[in-house]
């Protein structure tokens, strides 16, 4: 206890000393650092969508050291507040700004118009301009691979999927997962529960419990918390994590996880700003580009399954395998992808139907 108080007193003293020192920021030798801004839709936390972006931010700091200075603003609502934060970052000297949620699309475009010398990077949107790029991962590739794992490991043939909103990104993930699942286990079913919230551990937990009660022996999620993996751990079923490696929350439950890796992209784009070679682009990187990666396998996954997944991973990375290759039927048994065809990127981006094997419908 006294140790704590001592520590606190020391920090307090340090703070007061900082107050007395002149408030001139120390500049590294060789000019001003490049300022890099990030806008997050939730708190960073310990896992999830935003956490992965923050890992990317930290990788930028590691890669460039004192040549860059990063600033992140957490929990920026996707409404009227977003434009203010983005503008503020641009006005305070950030030369490249990553806006990491779909709802920032229109504000990013609007602010970018007034700051032509600043590079903007919007994750997951479809509007671009001269100084606004878009970027996203082909997360469906990771979903397909984890679907293979689930198909091999499920005994009941029922997999529970806790999902936030029926937007194309989520629907694509459910479909790819189901295609992978049924590629190795043609009778397996996916049951989806919608939570209508990206982050609501309570609701996600309830959904997980309900899915287990319906016979699911593997759970996965497209929400931002670790509640589903924790529920699986507690109830003794398997789980497949998403966004982040969640093995910390389900050391026995997690078979693997489909994770996002923004580090390479962020480092590349920041370097381009430094080198003055940055151009507005549209990036959709997958396993091959390293934007999507599987977390290490859990102990429960046997070597045969690991080998299968490694083979398919290589096939996807080399472009020999596309998860959305026909024949694929939707869950009303209508053929949506003819035999031998694959979905185009444009079709994937706006996908609004569920493949056969998924129980449920999408709101129209």
């Amino acid at each position, binding site marked *: 206890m006294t140790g704590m108080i001592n520590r606190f007193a020391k920090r307090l003293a340090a703070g007061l000393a900082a107050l007395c020192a002149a408030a001139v920021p120390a500049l590294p030798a060789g000019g001003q650092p490049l300022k890099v801004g990030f806008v997050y839709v939730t708190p960073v936390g310990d896992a999830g969508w935003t956490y992965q972006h923050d890992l990317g931010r930290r990788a930028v700091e590691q890669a460039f050291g004192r040549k860059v200075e990063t600033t992140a603003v957490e929990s920026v609502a996707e*409404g009227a507040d977003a434009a203010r934060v983005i503008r503020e970052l641009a006005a305070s000297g950030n030369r490249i700004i990553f806006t990491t949620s779909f709802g920032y699309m229109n504000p990013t475009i609007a602010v970018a118009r007034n700051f032509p010398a600043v590079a903007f990077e919007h994750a997951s949107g479809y509007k671009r301009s001269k100084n606004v790029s878009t970027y996203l991962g082909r997360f469906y590739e990771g979903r397909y691979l984890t679907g293979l794992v689930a198909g091999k490991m499920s005994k009941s043939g029922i997999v529970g999927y806790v999902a936030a909103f029926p937007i194309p990104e989520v629907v694509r993930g459910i479909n790819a997962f189901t295609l992978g699942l049924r590629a190795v286990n043609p009778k397996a079913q996916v049951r989806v529960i919608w939570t209508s919230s990206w982050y609501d551990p309570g609701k996600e937990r309830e959904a997980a419990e309900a899915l287990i009660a319906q016979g699911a022996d593997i759970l996965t999620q497209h929400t931002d918390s670790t509640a589903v993996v924790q529920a699986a751990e507690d109830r003794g079923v398997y789980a497949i994590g998403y966004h982040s490696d969640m093995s910390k929350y389900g050391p026995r439950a997690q078979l693997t996880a489909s994770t996002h890796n923004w580090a390479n992209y962020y480092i590349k784009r920041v370097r381009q700003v430094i080198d003055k070679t940055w151009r507005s682009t549209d990036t959709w990187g997958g396993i091959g580009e390293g934007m999507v990666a599987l977390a290490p396998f859990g102990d429960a996954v046997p070597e045969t399954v690991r080998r299968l997944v490694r083979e398919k991973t290589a096939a996807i990375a080399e472009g020999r395998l596309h998860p959305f290759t026909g024949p694929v039927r939707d869950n009303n048994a209508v053929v949506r992808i003819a035999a031998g065809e694959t979905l185009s990127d444009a079709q994937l981006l706006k996908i609004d139907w569920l493949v056969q094997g998924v129980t449920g419908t999408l709101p129209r």
Partner: protein
Amino acid sequence: MRLKLEPRPVASKWMGYASPLIAAGLTVIAAFILFGALGKNPLLALYTFAIQPLTSLYGLAELAIKATPLVLCALGLSVGFRGNVWNIGAEGQLTVGAICGGGVALWAFGNEGWWLLPAMIVAGALGGMAYGAIPAVLKNRFNANEILTSLMLTYVSIQFLGYLVTGPWRDPEGFNFPQTRLFDTEYGSLPILLEGTRLHAGVFLAVAAVIVIWVLMSRTFTGFQIEVGGQAPHAAAYAGYSQKRVVLLSFLIGGGLAGLAGLSEVAGSIGQLQPVISPGYGFAAIIVAFLGRLHPLGVLFASLLMSLMYIGGESLQMNLNLPLAVTGVFQGLLLFFVLGSDVLIRYRITLGSGRREAQV
């Protein structure tokens, strides 16, 4: 010997003025401890939090934009709270106002004209009123607790908005993302008042509402009836004032103003309907109403303070690289000091003895 809180016979006028100063003093002390412990310059942090956002025209405009929905929601709630009517559902009434006002803009797609914006404003207000009327009617007819019904209806409205933007009202060119078309920028949006800022005509709605509610509560018989109903329900009943009328009126006013707030958000800053419209203005307005001591002018100042707290929190994150959690703690402390100091208006601290307490 022990510290005791004793009710004052009469609310202290002196304390009414002193309590904000006490709160400000405590906040500064807290800032020194909190930011000092984190190794940041406390004065710089205070400046970044409370002053820097106000040093530019853009910053002032942002303050007004952020305060607008808070003023509108909190004014409506303060009327009800004075009349002992507990509308907790301003967030839902705001959402329905946004849906109705935005719905008019979407319906008019391709046939916009000068009439569109007025029609959206009327639709927003009426939508909020209608949604507010539900808990009022349930209370008057079935004596259902309005705190519960108005709160639960909030979640219903948010789900309904989600259904609309992912379903029937989804933008056909929007890659199936949950959002509607953008409203017409000429006829379907509140005009920008200051070039180079986002300040839109929604602030006029807020200012007008302050005046109207002030007149209503201090200059009309209806306002008097609401007040008596809240402070002395038996006296009100004896005088023949209808409490049911007060309930309905409070909810119509609160709902209508919250509906306007929602309309002003979608037609002012956002420009379309999307799954998230308000980051909780309807709930923050409950705090604002009490922070403003349920008085229209007080509500105005409290809204500005609250909005400065939000913007200052962002400013701390951006300029000093403080995490959200720290700014949240600081905002919470500030609020705690302000509301805590207000207790001293009605109570005083005395050094009571244990014995006296035992006799009581």
